[in-house]
């Protein structure tokens, strides 16, 4: 199996989900490649591409909420920080993801 082709396929599938939600892939190509690589490893192990920056809790209901792209499950928080937790996706209007502040839900005024 070719990891380049798999990453391309993941991009194809993810794009269809994230675009209508107002998100796009991060413009940081190196980060994007790294995160997709990690997702491929998780997919090989668990069968689904979990978010590479979140721990698995072995509680199916919670774990399913961190299957990439997990935007639909955490929309309020992601809308406040204009990116997803790992940074694979950013709001469509974001040009430089490094300028985005990383706020917890509490700091973002969501709790």
């Amino acid at each position: 199996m070719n990891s380049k082709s798999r990453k391309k396929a993941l991009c194809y599938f993810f794009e269809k989900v994230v675009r209508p939600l107002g998100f796009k892939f991060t413009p940081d190509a190196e980060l994007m490649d790294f995160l997709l690589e990690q997702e491929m490893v998780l997919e090989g192990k668990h069968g689904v591409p979990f978010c590479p920056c979140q721990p698995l809790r072995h509680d199916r209901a919670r774990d399913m909420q961190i299957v990439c792209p997990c935007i639909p499950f955490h929309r309020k928080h992601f809308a406040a920080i204009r990116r997803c937790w790992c940074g694979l996706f950013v709001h469509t209007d974001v040009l430089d993801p490094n300028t985005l502040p990383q706020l917890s839900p509490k700091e973002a005024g969501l709790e």
Partner: protein
Amino acid sequence: MSEMFVRAISADEIAPGGMKTVEVDGNEIVICNCGGKFHAVRRRCGHMNAPLEMGTLDGKYLTCPMHCAQFDVESGQAISGPVPPDFGGESPSPIFGKYLQNIDVLMKHVRTESIRTYATKLENGWVSIAVTSL
């Protein structure tokens, strides 16, 4: 050996995103309509020979109905192996667990191979497939 195109199916028989099996010269072939562009691949999955036309086609990516291995129908390349079983956080029953252990030992050696592709041609509303003849 030479390659010749054989008229296989009328293009309007497969809606975009659809697939259909045909038999050409003894070869079982799945013709995929990827948004108006036709691709032809071997019918059997490169993992465990499941019939691929029963799976799903999303763009140029075909997912096998049996264990969800995925293939790129343009190149025939296997892009993902079978999905491991998921018990939703519950452990399987002891008997089934034992069975799975044995199956795992056997399946460890099973690889997901890429599938063969066939050149296609769309002419006068017909999809033709290139088959090799002696």
